[in-house]
């Protein structure tokens, strides 16, 4: 009895030791990097390929659903348990005040690849203090999406070059809109909503709300804030807007039913439009936007200070974002490159059936080359929200624009004191 018990116990211990060994041996050799990103922000196949490229590194890629930014900030607040690599969206500047929580990529060798990237995009990931906390993924160059058939019917130019030439300024664009709406007896609207006008005018600017020292410049003459506001109000007064808010089912339906003839948007709107309006395939074109080129959106990758393998993490993201892989991501996922070399790749000249076989990549590339470097500041999103709410009141409830502007500015001033 006693012997049997001892043997059993011995066997059990042996099993535990062996299984314990089996569990620990590989982790001593392979280094696991946890990656947080959201759906479609990176090419999943590329992440798998990175494991092949770097033997001994396992990438635990986790798609974080829901409100990504809130979840990231909660993790940062907890102080531990975060990933090694994390994706940021265009709210990267909101994390500048917490730059000590991320590795300065300049310390890990980012300088060597700086010249490969678009300068304005690269600078968005660098804090005013000169630390680089985020490596560019994709960009969101903006352009004018328009229905060539409707433009032609209304007697407007329909060829992308002509559209760019004749609708070069916002005022020309609005005038063309008036002409188009008269022709269609207001059954077709020129644009989707005036909040988008406000955002797109600011997207073309290098001075919006803040100086790099975080002083508010929205009430000065060289900031685009008031210009953007006035243009948005003008569009409302000319009744050019269909009042369909971006990324709503309303917007989708209006696009598919041909009730909206054009909108200015970033390259990633292509995907949204194609899914929203399959019935209009072949009728859309893309031209350089009225008022100039701009950028709206685009994401980044950062390495958290809690990571045990910062150098390995940097090598991996550097490889994932090299020009060849960016070209592949663009081809597969429509993630528009941030690497200059990728902008004149052959894939940019690929004709697209949805856009009547136009190669829209060429238009967006030209736009991307022309974007001015801007500084956003940590409160950009909050301020945008305040102005956006007042603009909706103007557009939809007929609030007096001057009163709305004063209300917006008063609320902004209050916000800045918090």
């Amino acid at each position, binding site marked *: 009895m006693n012997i049997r018990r001892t043997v059993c116990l011995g066997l059990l211990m042996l099993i535990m030791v062996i299984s314990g060994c089996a569990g620990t041996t590989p982790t001593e050799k392979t280094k696991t990097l946890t990656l947080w990103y959201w759906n479609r922000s990176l090419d999943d196949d590329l992440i798998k390929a990175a494991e092949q490229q770097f033997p001994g590194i396992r990438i635990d890629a986790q798609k974080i659903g829901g*409100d990504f930014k*809130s979840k990231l*900030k*909660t993790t*940062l*607040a907890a102080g531990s348990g975060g990933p090694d690599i994390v994706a940021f969206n265009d709210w990267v500047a*909101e*994390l500048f*005040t*917490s730059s000590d*929580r991320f590795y300065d990529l300049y310390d890990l060798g980012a300088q060597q690849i700086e010249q490969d990237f678009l300068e304005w995009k690269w600078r968005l990931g660098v804090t005013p203090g000169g630390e680089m906390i985020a490596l560019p993924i994709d960009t969101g160059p903006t352009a004018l999406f328009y229905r060539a058939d409707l433009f032609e019917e209304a007697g407007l130019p329909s060829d992308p070059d002509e559209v760019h030439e004749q609708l070069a300024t916002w005022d020309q664009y609005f005038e063309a809109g008036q002409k188009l709406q008269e022709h269609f007896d207001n059954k077709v609207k020129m644009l989707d909503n005036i909040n988008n006008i406000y955002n797109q005018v600011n997207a073309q600017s290098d001075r919006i709300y803040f100086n790099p020292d975080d002083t508010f410049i929205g009430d000065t003459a060289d900031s685009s804030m008031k210009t953007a506001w006035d243009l948005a109000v003008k569009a409302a007064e000319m009744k050019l807007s269909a*009042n*369909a808010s971006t990324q709503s*089912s*309303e917007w989708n*339906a*209006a696009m598919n039913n041909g*009730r909206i003839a054009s909108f200015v948007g970033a390259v990633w709107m292509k995907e949204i439009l194609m899914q929203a309006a399959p019935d209009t395939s072949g009728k859309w074109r893309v031209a350089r936007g009225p008022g100039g080129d701009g950028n709206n959106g685009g994401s980044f990758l950062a390495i958290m200070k809690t990571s045990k393998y910062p150098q390995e993490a940097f090598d991996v993201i550097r490889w994932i974002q090299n020009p060849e892989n960016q070209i592949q991501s663009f081809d597969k996922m429509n993630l528009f490159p941030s690497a200059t070399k990728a902008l004149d790749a052959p894939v940019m000249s690929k004709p697209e059936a949805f856009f009547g076989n136009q190669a829209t990549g060429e238009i967006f590339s030209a736009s991307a080359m022309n974007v001015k470097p801007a500084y956003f500041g940590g409160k950009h*999103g*909050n301020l945008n*929200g305040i102005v*956006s*709410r007042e603009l*909706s*009141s103007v557009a*939809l*409830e007929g*609030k007096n624009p001057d009163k709305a502007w004063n209300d917006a500015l008063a*609320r902004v001033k*209050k916000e800045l004191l*918090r």
Partner: protein
Amino acid sequence: MKNSMLNHPAPPEQKAVPSHPRPKHRLTSEIWKHRKEYLAISPFFIVFAIFGLFPIAFSMFLSFQKWDGIGEMTFNGLNNYQFMLTDPEFWKAVGNTLLIWVYSTIPMLFFALIIAFLLNAAFVRFRTFFRIGYFLPNVTSLVAVAIVFGTLFSNNYGLLNYVLSLFGIPSVEWLNKTWGIQLAVSVMVIWRWVGYNAIIYLAGLQSIPSVLYEAAKIDGASGIQAFFKITIPNLRPIILFTVITSTIGGMQVFTEPQVLVGNDGGVSGGGLTIVLYLYREAFVHNYFGYGAAVGWGMFVLIALFSILNWRMVQGKPSND
């Protein structure tokens, strides 16, 4: 009898109670004596302390701090409360919440009473089926409900506008109007909670003794008289309960406007309720200290309204 009682010596129980030599340790020794029982009920209290008590205490502390959720907390004094009381958007949120509460609670409780009365009536068949049917909205996922209502009230291509167009009425941009958003949210609240309250009223109705109705009938009372003189007074405590629970619920409306019109509460913030405002300030704009202060502001508001309700529904103090 009376005499014998008076002549009785002091009750024996008084002597039977032993005096405690060490009253200080009485409580601890009592706890030790019943340690198994305390251990058995401890899970609730431990969980409550972690997930209930601590967050409440922490939010009190947080409401006096300035904190973006990541960086250092700094003491902010009463600034959060001051900002709250002087922020027009906060008062707009309070106003919206009260409006939505009035739009939803009054019709909801009215319909619930009617449904309960009908379910209680003798002529209704398949009662269980109806009870389940009316209760079902309450257990449906709120986000799914909001999405469905979003398509019903959709500005141009919604079902509601389609129905209007059948009668030649021009379509209404429901979700582009303050009143439209508030109406949609209220309808959603009514749809979701009417069955729940009806079931509670039904239980109340069934507890009213039928002798009262029989006596009224014999005295020649009409059905309407019976309803107002017997049903309503007897239901008063139940009505008070439903009014208070729907006040607390109504003050906390969040998911409906959030899914329907987004974090900003839609056009001119028509759907911006207090909780949505709290959520936006804390989790979208990262003012966590301020969010905590708004939470305590809401606490005061709910407490005030609960007391007010109590007074109103309770009526005069026990005269009848």
